[in-house]
Every structure is written in structure tokens, then in C-alpha cells.
């Protein structure tokens, strides 16, 4: 499975996909006729090999609801969750487990599934009802690394990362605070 970035991929996009392109958040992710996920406004697409595309899309929203950061684009939540598609493609048992977890949430959500629940607080309530499920903590604890250990995410939070190659911070603001 790969995350393709940059120019919009040459793919036929359905009318529904076109309509969704202008929406915010995960609603802006379209499922293409080829079964991939496409976010035109953020300019990335994701081939989904192991899971159902709707399941992958739901996992991206679940990831955001567990660790919501409004300034962090969907692309980073997608990257953080892609290992679940890899695992599902390699192992039918893993695939069944993750599909079952998402299906349970969809069932609890009612018509329209988890993706159709409008308010974050309502979706968080659904997650809370599943929080004793070991799959929930597996996803949550995996995100601690897969989301926050992504070097592309760090600048969004203002974390500057590696420092030695730049000579440390002695000449780069280690004591520049000016508001005390």
C-alpha cells in the first residue's frame, strides 16, 4: 500500500467523490471507483490493499477522534494508520479483527455508520464504549508513536527535532525568551 502525494492522480472520480472533495476533514476523503482513498484538497491518495476502503477511511477518522489536532491534516492520520492495511493484507486473522472492530463501531453508530456520526463528541462516546476492547488500546498506543514520531508532523507543533548537525541551540535561540 502506498501513500501517493503531489499532483492529483490520473483517476476517474465519481460525482459523489467530486462533491466530497470540498468537504472538511475525513469527509473530504473520497473512495474512488478503483477502491482507493483520494483526498484531492490535500493532494494525496492511498491504495488500500487489505481492508475495505470504507474501513480504512473509518480508521483514519477513528485515529483523529482519539488524538484530535485540528491543525494536523488527514494525511498524517492516514500515514499513522496504514500499518493496519499492511497487516490485513498479510494476515487474514488480523484483517478479521480490525474489520470486526470497525463493524462494531458502525453497528453501535446506527444508520450511516461511524463515518455518518456528525459530532466528534458523539463519536468519542462510541469510542469510549469500546475502550475496554484490546483493539482500541492497540490502536491508541500505536498512534502515540505512528502519529507523533512523524518528522513531518513536528513543525506543526513547533518542535524542531535534531539539533547537533546545526551546532546545537547555543547560537539558535536557547535563551531567547522575551516575555518574562
Amino acid at each position, binding site marked *: 500500500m502506498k501513500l501517493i502525494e503531489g499532483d492529483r492522480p490520473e483517476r476517474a472520480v465519481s460525482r459523489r467523490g467530486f462533491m466530497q472533495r470540498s468537504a472538511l476533514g475525513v469527509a473530504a476523503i473520497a473512495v474512488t471507483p478503483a477502491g482507493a482513498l483520494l483526498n484531492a484538497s490535500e493532494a494525496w491518495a492511498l491504495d488500500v490493499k487489505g481492508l475495505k476502503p470504507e474501513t480504512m477511511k473509518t480508521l483514519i477518522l477513528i485515529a483523529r*477522534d*482519539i*488524538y*484530535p*489536532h485540528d*491543525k494536523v491534516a488527514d494525511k498524517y492520520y492516514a500515514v499513522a494508520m496504514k500499518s493496519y492495511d499492511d497487516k490485513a493484507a498479510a494476515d487474514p486473522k488480523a484483517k478479521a479483527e480490525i474489520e470486526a472492530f470497525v463493524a462494531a463501531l458502525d453497528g453501535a453508530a446506527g444508520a450511516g455508520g461511524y463515518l455518518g456520526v456528525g459530532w*466528534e463528541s458523539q463519536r*468519542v462516546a462510541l469510542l469510549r464504549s469500546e475502550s475496554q476492547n484490546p483493539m482500541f488500546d492497540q490502536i*491508541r498506543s500505536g498512534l*502515540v*508513536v505512528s*502519529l*507523533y*514520531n512523524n518528522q513531518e*508532523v*513536528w513543525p506543526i*507543533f*513547533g*518542535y*524542531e*527535532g*535534531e*539539533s*547537533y*548537525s546545526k*551546532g*546545537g*541551540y*547555543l547560537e*539558535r*535561540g*536557547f*535563551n*531567547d*525568551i522575551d*516575555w*518574562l
Partner: protein
Amino acid sequence: MSAKFDQNDDSVVVIVGSGAGGGTLGNELAQKGVKVVILEAGARTEYTDFVNDEWASFIQLAWKDMRTTSGSWRVHKNFPNLPAWIVKSVGGSTTHWAGASLRLQEHEFKTESAYGRINGANLLDWPITLADLEPYYARAEDKMGVTRTNNLPGLPGSNNFKVMKAGADKLGYKECHTGRMAINSVERDGRNSCHQTGFCFQGCKWGAKWSTLYTEIPKGEATGNLEVRPDSHVAQIEHDASGKVTGVVYFDKDGKTQRQKARIVAVAGNSIESPRLLLNSASSKFPDGLANSSGQVGRNYMRHMTGSVYAVFEKPVHMYRGTTMAGIVRDEARHDDKRGFVGGYELETLSLGLPFMAAFLDPGAWGREFTTALDGYVNMAGMWIVGEDMPQETNRITLSDAKDQWGLQVADVHFDDHANDVAMRNHAYGQGRALYEAVGATRVFPTPPYPSTHNLGTNRMSEKPRDGVVNKHGQTHDISNLFIADGSQFTTGGAENPTLTIVSLAIRQGEFIADQMKANTI
């Protein structure tokens, strides 16, 4: 050209571990002409290969071999197989430490006398006093280049320090400065000065922070009397019919067992592995493990009353820029039971990068309450609380049923807070909050203790053999040629970071061992 000793050479001193205790002892003995083999479980990663990346560095340096945990401490719930964040690499935890180098206070050597009887606490006076250790503290401070000693200037104040200082001033604290740090504020001892790089915990790529890896060990090797064998995991200490230790069995990097004979063995594997090794060395003559006639091997495990306070402000701090331990408030380190607890605590600045902040700020937490805290990351300041926790016999290292990659029983670390620990921590959280709010913090996070970076007490010093494991020289009461050289010797923990005391004890122990060897008494 460093030495290479024969495995059948029973005239060598074998030291298990190469950190603050083992590395220092090895060099001290080598300088005196004693032949030493240091067996280090970890690899030899030189400081030029350290990485400024929290998770990658953890994978490179941290002890990740199996351990189990038990007890009511939160570490057991959130990190059941990671009781401690310490090192498996040549240099031990001196590669990872922040550099804080404080002497224990006079009363902290005699807490049973000073604090009185505390229910549930196994307090005991050390068999040495501050006066006994002072000459060695002075030598250690010179060896390590501790700032504010030996005419060395203090390090300059970073943003994180400036926030602490401004708050400390508002609260009326009198002793707040950039610390007594084993980090070169000027070039010294052939090593760079500090460039405020901010990845102290990931190993100092400048070599500015003192670590046995690039000080004691190469100095010892240069004498021709010290051999360091990395990737050598000691499994068992062997003894003869009279009870004298004769050598050790270890696994080499190919997983083959090797034996190194020894005249003397000194164990310095830090406070979880050292008692584990003694317990795993049980024999028909010593069914409870080596040197354990008192039953105290593994007991009295202390990790300092720890905890952190992070605070978010309205404007940027960039606390990650610069040294991790960038400043200290010492006013609360006194013993003053009017506060509702015995013993005291130091407040020391702390910083984590975004990846580790996400992991440790509130382990297990999720949702907007947590993420809005991380959204304030660049506006955060932080401090770590280091306080004296009570030794309890039930806080202990025992052998778990779980086994490691060599088939050896691993250590289980059992810990419950003592009421004194809780009272002290709550007081410290309150003071930390007050300090940050005094300079405008909008949110304050009392952060629970991380996997322990200070691990003490599990082979403690005692006057009487029935109360502990070693005497005032770190020599085990039961076996005259078996020594302990790490922080597991500590009778009590004090409020201060332990490394300076470990190094000082190792210098003193080196004198004792060399004298005894010359006199042929061991």
C-alpha cells in the same frame, strides 16, 4: 592498545557493568596497576554515533531486555515490562543521564536518627557519614568537571531555566541556579564545551557531558590494565567450597557461554540487574542467592519520589532548546516535617521532545483534553521532582517466572508508594504549580512518575550484616571478595541525583580494594 586478559587468569578483578560505578572503579584500579576485566552486557556505541531522536536513541541505548513489574505503582499499569529507563551499552546510564551532580546532605546519611521511626519504612543509617565521603566527593567533582566547583562557571540559563527562575523568585525561593552539572561549561579534559543541543538523554554527541564511555574507560584502557568486553551478559557468579567467588559465567555476542576467572568480582549492573545476578547465582551453599544471609538482597528498592510538572504559557518557551536539566531549586531539599512529610526534594528543569511528551505526559490518556495540552507544546516549560522516597522491604527485586533470551529468570520490580512519598509528591506538585502560575501559566499538568531513571538500595550498605548486604566499603558482608559498586549500595536515597555519590563511592572503594590486594587480605 588496550589489554586482553586470558579467561583463566584468576588474578584479575572482574567488574560487571561499565557505568558510573563499574567504569569508574575499573579506571581507578587500572591506574593503580590492578588488572581489570569489565564485562558489559551492552554493545559499544561511541558518542559520535549517538542520535538526536528520542525513539531511535531509545532503541540504540536503552535496556529493553525482559523485566516484569508488580505492585500498585502506575508504571506497572502503563509500562508493565519497562520499570526503568536505563541503559544497556558501554558507559551504562552515564550515556543517558542529565548530568546533575549533587552531594547528599549530612542528615541524609543518618535518616533513622534524623527522621525517627516511620511506620512501614525500613530506614537505616548509612555506615559512613558525609565527612567520610567529602574527600571523595571533591575528587569526583574534579574528575567529572562539575560546574560551580573547582572554579568552573555555571552553565548559561536557557529559556526553561529562565521560566523556573522567574517563578522561583516570585515564590521567594533563595537557591535557584543552573545547577552543579557534570557538563563542560568550558572546554576541559580534552572534551568540548556544551552547545545547548537539547538531547542530553540521548547521549551527548559533543562529549561535553561526563560519561564513563569517553572518560574513565579510555583512560583505564590507556594504562594497559583494563579490558572492556562488550556484548558480554553475565549470567552467574561462581564460588568455591569455602564460599569465595572464583569467577563469572557470561553469554558472549554469539550466545555461547564463557567463563572468566577472577580474584575479586565487583557487581555494578544498576539496582535491578545487580540483585538479580546475586539471586540467579544461588547454589546449594547459598540457596537464597549470593551474599543474602540478611534476606535484604533485592529489597528496599527506591526510585526517588519522582513526578514532573509541565505548564503551558501564552507565549513560546521552546523548552527543548538546550540542556535537559537546565536549572534547579534546592530550597525544598531540607528536612522539615512541618510540611507533612520527612525528607526533602529538589526541583530540576526537564524537557521532553514531542514524541516522548506524547508518550509520558499522561500515559493512556486520549481525546481533546490530552491533545490540547500537546497543542501547547512550544509554549511549555517543565520540571522534574527528585525527592527522598522511603525504603520499604516489600519494594523489591525478585526473580520472575518469566525468562530472558538466555533462559535466565528475569527481574520483577515490585513497588508501592509509601504515604510519605505521596504526601511529598503532592506538596511538590503544589509548589511546582504555584511556581509556574506565578509567571502566568494557563494550564499545569502534574505528570505521574515515568519508568525509573534513578534506581537504588537493593544491596544496601549496613553496619550490621543482618540489616543489609554490604559494609562501608561496598564489600558484601558474606563474601570478602565480592563487592557491589553501583547505586544498589545506597542505604537510603536522599533527595539528590545519585551519580556523584556512586562515582565517589567507587573512587573510595578502588582505594580499599587495591590496599586489600596489596596486603593480600583478599
